[in-house]
């Protein structure tokens, strides 16, 4: 499109430079074929992403299995009480547990006059708290 009139005085040294460069040019095959054989660099993400996924999946599976196993092995609260104290009422077990707890220095903060007025569950009329 835009062809300039040849400036021979400048074109000549460029032609000399080109000739010198061509003589020293590395062969095409040595530059093209190594990359064609697959010297391409593998992005670290191609290795890291699947590895992280596998580790995350294994951790999730281990967690899931652990949770299910502990849930299956855990005894029902009622069964534990019954096994620990056969023949006792819930109130008796509760008072026994309460008595075995060592008082702490700040326990008095939990003492409220109204708590002393709470009636024992077993002494309540049968209609209270029952459907």
């Amino acid at each position, binding site marked *: *499109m*835009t*062809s*300039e009139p040849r*400036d021979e*005085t*400048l*074109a*000549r*040294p*460029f032609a*000399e*430079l*080109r*000739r*010198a*460069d*061509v*003589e*020293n*040019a*590395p062969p*095409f095959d040595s*530059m*093209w074929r*190594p*990359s*064609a054989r697959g*010297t*391409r660099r593998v992005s670290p993400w191609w290795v890291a992403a699947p590895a992280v996924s596998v580790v995350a999946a294994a951790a999730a599976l281990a967690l899931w299995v652990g949770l299910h196993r502990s849930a299956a092995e855990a005894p029902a609260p009622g069964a534990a009480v019954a096994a620990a104290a056969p023949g006792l009422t819930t109130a008796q077990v509760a008072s026994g547990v309460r008595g075995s707890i060592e008082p702490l220095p700040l326990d008095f903060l939990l003492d409220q006059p109204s708590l002393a007025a709470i009636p024992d569950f077993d002494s309540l009329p049968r209609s209270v708290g029952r459907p």
Partner: protein
Amino acid sequence: MEGEHLARELASLHAASWGWALACCGRDPSAAADALQQAYSKVLEGKARFGGQAALKTWFFSVIRLTAMEQRRSIVRWLRRAPDREQPADEAPASSSGKPDRGLERAEAAARLSRALARLAPRQREVLHLVFYEELSIADAATIMGVSIGSARQHYDRGKKNLRDLLGDDLRTS
């Protein structure tokens, strides 16, 4: 364009591509080899695709130019080093045609031009190389350089004037 066909086309352009890679890398042969190989890799890996909008040579020269820029961050860095660097032409054997004086003369002329080009502004050096060395039109040079034709023409005119001043007597005596 199919792989085999593209490879053949690029092989036919290899000498010109090598010259352009040298120009883009401040005439450092190892940097130019790296840039050219990277450019070939981009083509092979499909990172650079020839769409057919421009001539293959114009397109591939753009790839080389961008690759060299990515690789070296700045052509200017190489330009500043170029005058102190021994030119490959200086190391070339005197001549393969049995005329040692003529061969030496050529090598010296090439080295002088190389040093003069290194003192030009990068854009001026690029456009002069593309027009005189690669024998492309200013329009093609503008496409490769990613500038308008008007801008390329300005760089061309200023570059020619500056190069003449730098070469001075060498041009008159050659």
